[in-house]
């Protein structure tokens, strides 16, 4: 594998693939914090030029984290279809980029190619793609999944209702849920982040959301985003959960820091298949986000874009219903400003979609980042154009429990309106039945949560 490049008269030498991948990234504070980013703008471009000329076999033959040392690497390596891989092994990363962007390359063809790709190859492609490249390529890909009801069809944009409450008050959660539904949000999932991580509390929230779904016959699914072990206890105690949730990292050590392993996920997977209330076949919800491995000192010197791609490689094993990156949640030491958040959001969406993941994005930021609500609105529109499966809906974008800002019910309704996108088909029919939507537009009744009292 080539590790040296001369651009005009200046020669750049890199130690190996890990360094090339890291230095090829667009600037971001997390790589700087890890001490692995390019020293200057030209070195960044030298790394990117070199990366563009490496072949897919170079990437596979030089693992950034060997499968013998890491179970996430093993899962990614084992998932490769050798025949398809052999047919494209001599492609350069540049060839991969241009093939994805080619007018003749359809969703069908991408579905074939992805079986020969590793997460690292997907990350490498993202690094040599501009923002509009990432949007163009992702917009070709359709990933439809079904828990109780299907989402992800072209021309639709779903929303997760995230009706969190600072003390898990059932009344308070229900009130925010009514508000979400009245704006046409909740087709992806009714998903609550609990304050109290106990099986009993998780069960209460699941029971309430289940009752509301049954009472109004809402074509959707429920979930409580507690630790997976807590959800498992709740389900064993009879809690009606349509799917399981868990945060994922891109390394075994990162997952250990989250208190999970592949063995635990396998056990949980068996449980949700047997005792979950969801129809399936897709019964998992995963969240990811650049920087989590570095924050738990589990990054092995690998850059956060590559690690993020590996999260999706792991997620794929469990055929998830929905996955979203929580793109700006972790703070300015990983993504410093709106430019970095917007770039990361587009990268994550593309890298997930290329690996066949039903990607949504929590377009969000914390108050110590150099970003504001306008930046989130920008990214939401960009992702809507890229064909994102779902966005997160929070009352006026202000999550009063998690203390960060995401996108609002208004924002999702607006992105749908501006880009001509519809809610998931059966959910839209339900909205029509409730008198909230007509011909894809909100009616005069929309925005009135007392409809559901």
């Amino acid at each position, binding site marked *: 594998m080539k590790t040296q490049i001369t651009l005009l008269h200046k020669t750049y030498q890199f130690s190996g693939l890990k360094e090339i991948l890291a230095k090829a990234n667009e600037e971001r*504070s997390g790589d*700087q*914090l890890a001490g692995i980013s390019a020293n200057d703008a030209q070195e960044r471009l030298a790394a990117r030029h070199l990366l563009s000329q490496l072949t897919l076999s170079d990437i596979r033959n030089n693992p950034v984290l060997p499968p013998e040392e890491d179970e996430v690497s093993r899962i990614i390596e084992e998932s490769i279809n050798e025949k398809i891989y052999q047919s494209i092994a001599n492609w350069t990363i540049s060839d991969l980029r241009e093939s994805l962007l080619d007018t003749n390359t359809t969703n069908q063809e991408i579905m074939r190619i992805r079986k020969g790709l590793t997460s690292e190859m997907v990350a490498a492609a993202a690094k040599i793609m501009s923002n509009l490249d990432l949007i163009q390529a992702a917009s070709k890909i359709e990933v439809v999944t079904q828990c109780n009801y299907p989402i992800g069809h072209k021309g639709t944009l779903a929303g997760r209702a995230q*009706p*969190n*409450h*600072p*003390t*898990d*008050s059932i*009344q*308070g*959660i*229900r*009130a*925010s849920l*009514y*508000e979400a539904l009245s*704006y046409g949000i909740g087709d992806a999932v009714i998903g609550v982040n609990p*304050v*109290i991580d106990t099986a009993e*509390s998780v069960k209460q929230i699941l029971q309430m959301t289940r009752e509301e779904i049954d009472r109004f016959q809402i074509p959707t699914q429920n979930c409580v985003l507690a630790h997976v072990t807590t959800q498992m206890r709740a389900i064993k105690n009879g809690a009606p959960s349509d799917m399981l949730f868990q945060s994922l990292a891109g390394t075994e050590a990162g997952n250990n820091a989250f208190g999970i392993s592949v063995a635990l996920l396998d056990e949980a997977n068996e449980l949700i298949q047997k005792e979950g209330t969801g129809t399936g076949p897709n019964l998992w919800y995963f969240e990811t986000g650049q920087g989590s491995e570095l924050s738990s000192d589990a990054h092995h010197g690998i850059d956060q874009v590559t690690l993020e791609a590996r999260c999706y490689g792991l997620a794929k094993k469990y055929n998830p219903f929905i996955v979203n990156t929580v793109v700006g949640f972790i703070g*300015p*030491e990983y993504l*410093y400003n709106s430019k970095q958040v917007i770039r990361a959001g587009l990268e994550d969406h593309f890298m997930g979609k290329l690996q066949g993941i039903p990607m949504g994005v929590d377009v969000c930021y*914390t*108050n*110590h*980042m150099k970003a*504001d*609500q306008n930046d989130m609105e920008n990214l939401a529109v960009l992702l809507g154009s890229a064909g994102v499966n779902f966005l997160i809906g*929070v*009352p*006026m*974008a*202000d999550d*009063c429990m998690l*203390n960060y*800002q995401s996108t*609002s019910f*208004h924002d999702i*309704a*607006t992105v*749908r*309106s501006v880009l001509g996108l519809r809610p998931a088909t059966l959910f839209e029919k339900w909205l029509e039945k409730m008198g909230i939507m007509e011909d894809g537009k*909100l009616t005069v*009744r*929309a*925005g*009135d*949560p*007392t*409809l559901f*009292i």
Partner: protein
Amino acid sequence: MQDKQIEFIVQKVMEQLQKQFPAAPETVTPEPVTETTGLFFTEEDWQTSIPKPVYQEGTSELTSSTPARIGVWRAGTRPLTKTMLKLQFDHAAAIDAVGGEVLEKTLQEFDLFTVETCYENKEVYLKRPDKGRVLTDAAVQTIKEKCMHRPQVQIVVSDGLSASAVETNLKDVYPALLDSLKINNLTPGTPFFVKGGRVACMDHIGEILEPEVLVLLIGERPGLVSASSLSAYMCYRPRKGIVESDRNVISNIHPLGTPPIEAGAHIGTVLRKMLEQKLSGVKLEL
């Protein structure tokens, strides 16, 4: 759970009281003025309502059950102007809290001298949390010269992520803390202020001064509910290698959260228990 619920109820009651009995400046009737001189905006002025709700009485039932911004109505698919400006206003307070500085006057009031971490400037501070955990060489020299060595209780104050948290709460929390030390028969060393501090700067200070226990009052990451929330981190014999779970914390200290005077009074009790049990963190029995 019960504590949190009580905390929340107290917060809601206080908000209600504030609405019913607005703070002094707002109750003062301004001199008769011409219509054009100014606008007065209070919490109520940000309220919006749903024009024709299906169930009129239901609106307040829903909105009173959560601090979430619901029942706000819309202009097409967009929020009403007031709702949008209120969100931007709350975010502005948070931005100012992160970018702000604690006034020298505030620190002098409590005889706190200032030292710095290696944070350099606000941008580096945000990008490199590791630098906010280490004091500069000059700072090490200064505290070695000025501070009592091996005190029983070392008090440290830091701006952290919210200067306004210190500005708002120190005047209540600090005297209450000193009183609670007295009540618990504890002796403080020489307190000081750390500019650009992170929570783990406790460990470095612990290495230098070797206190029995250390309490750090530090500004929290601002939220939209409060941009001025303070935390009190406490540790028994802080030193390098201390992990998060070895520390105890009282968080959310601000007038509408954990009341500052109450928090200050509680710190002395926690520190005494650390000294009695010779440990801190998750193993401490409170």
